[in-house]
């Protein structure tokens, strides 16, 4: 199997904080790979580096065999990496539909409109197409972010805590959506704290702590790992 994303010995330091400390990981094409870890362990920083929002201090990031570390984020996005933000970043003041249209920006006008319609439908937002984005309830804003990044048709989709603010039934819908996305050949790199979602959907889970990998493997195996329980789960977590 080919590695769609390969990260080698990635490090990043902010004054006083070693956010990432020589982290390496692989994401196989067509899978859902999850990254979990305690708050402040470096997950978002990692995603910021993969998408060009942070510049790595050292280490390599290869996407589809090509080095992308330090490239501008727009370049990286155009190579096929889409993302959502942990702190929701919608285009405030634009309608829900226009937000998605902007995601589909690189497609032709007609195609974009059609695709936006489909995505809104799929994410249950069609009723709100004309609302200003900030009028959506929090959970729906998250969905809108996902719709927007899917509109750009990425081959790798990075989701930073997509389930935050969703209730269990909504999480089930998210789960279904992610399966659907994977089914369409999009690789998903997921950051989450929701164990049910993680355990249900992940093909592989990587656990980091203080910027370093402490465990990796199938959901079941990491869940049973005492180091993971100690650092992250607190108690054995059954799902």
């Amino acid at each position, binding site marked *: 199997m080919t590695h769609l994303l390969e990260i080698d010995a990635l490090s990043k330091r902010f004054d006083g904080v070693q956010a990432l400390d020589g982290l390496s990981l692989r994401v196989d094409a067509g899978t859902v790979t999850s990254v979990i870890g305690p708050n402040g362990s470096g997950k978002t920083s990692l995603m910021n580096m993969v998408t060009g929002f942070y510049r790595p201090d050292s280490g390599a990031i290869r996407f589809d065999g090509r080095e992308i570390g330090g490239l501008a984020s*727009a370049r990286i996005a155009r190579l096929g990496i889409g993302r959502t933000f942990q702190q929701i*970043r919608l285009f*405030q*003041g*634009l309608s829900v539909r226009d937000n998605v249209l*902007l995601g589909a*920006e690189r497609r032709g006008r007609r195609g974009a409109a059609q695709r936006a319609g489909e995505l809104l439908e799929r994410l249950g937002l069609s009723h709100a197409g004309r609302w200003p984005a900030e009028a959506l309830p929090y959970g729906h804003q998250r969905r809108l972010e996902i719709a927007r990044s899917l509109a750009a048709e990425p081959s790798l989709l990075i989701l930073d805590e997509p389930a935050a603010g969703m209730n269990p039934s909504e999480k089930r819908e998210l789960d279904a959506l992610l399966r659907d996305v994977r089914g369409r050949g999009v690789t998903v790199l997921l950051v989450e704290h929701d164990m049910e979602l993680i355990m249900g959907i992940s093909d592989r889970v990587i656990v980091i702590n203080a910027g370093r990998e402490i465990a990796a493997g199938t959901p079941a195996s990491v869940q049973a790992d005492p180091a993971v329980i100690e650092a992250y789960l607190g108690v054995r977590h059954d799902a």
Partner: protein
Amino acid sequence: MMDFLLAYENVIALVCINAILGIGVYLMLSVNRFSLATGGLVAVGAYVSVLVSLHTALPFPAALAAGTLAGALMALLLGAPVLRLEGDYFALATLAFTEVMRVIAFNWDTVTGGALGLDGIPLATTLPLLAATVAALVAVIVIARRGRTGRVLEATRLDDMPAQALGIDVARVRLAVFVFSGAVCGLGGALLGHLNGFIGPNDFGLQRSLDAIAYAVLGGLGHVSGALAGATIFTALPEALRFSAQAREIVMATILLLAVVFLPRGMLSIGQPLRGALGRISGSTRRAAPAGEAAPINTEVRP
């Protein structure tokens, strides 16, 4: 009619030129950058075109082209380092640029004539030409905003970070818009230079930049027509107030202030419902956000 034209020809010409400068500012506002470079860029366009007219045998269109090109080129040189700056820092860097340009104009006697300026410039700028220029600019912008370009600009204006995540190279977009804006300002300068037969450094200071911003903002943000409305009102009002010789300045300032306070979305917001129907994607229709939710459009924070 003839009489009216005779008495107000220059006012109308100034409305057009100011509208062009307002459009230059509008362009930058449409990518969320507050440019105070107008004065400097207009100076570059004006001096270059006037020098072409005075020192070469080239025809007027060539002088116009030279001014436009010079404005664009200057914007390119300036934009490369300066556009990295965020929000207000960008505004202030462009302010510095405008001031430096003014000082250069005062000091470079042999070329600019210093404080004495340049005179004897052929009066080539005509009303039809000005009107056509404004119309053409408005048309280009309205058409461009309709489609893809409009959406890209809108995303760039609203929030850099997600725009980049969607593959929009906001830096490139801004530079392109700045260069276009520079060309517009350069053209405005060239036209201005050939309007009255004289130019001097004091025509191009910070005041010019601030006025241009007032045109764009006062008319109504979010649409080119705002710049037109703003330029018209701003330019014509002092003339309309000619009757009150001394208190004119007070009246003028008061009207401006009231206009801003009572029409905080710009003069065009008088016809708000109409516009809402017209420009959905270009519109900056903002609903009331719940209090406590600071919804900053710009991405920067100031630690």
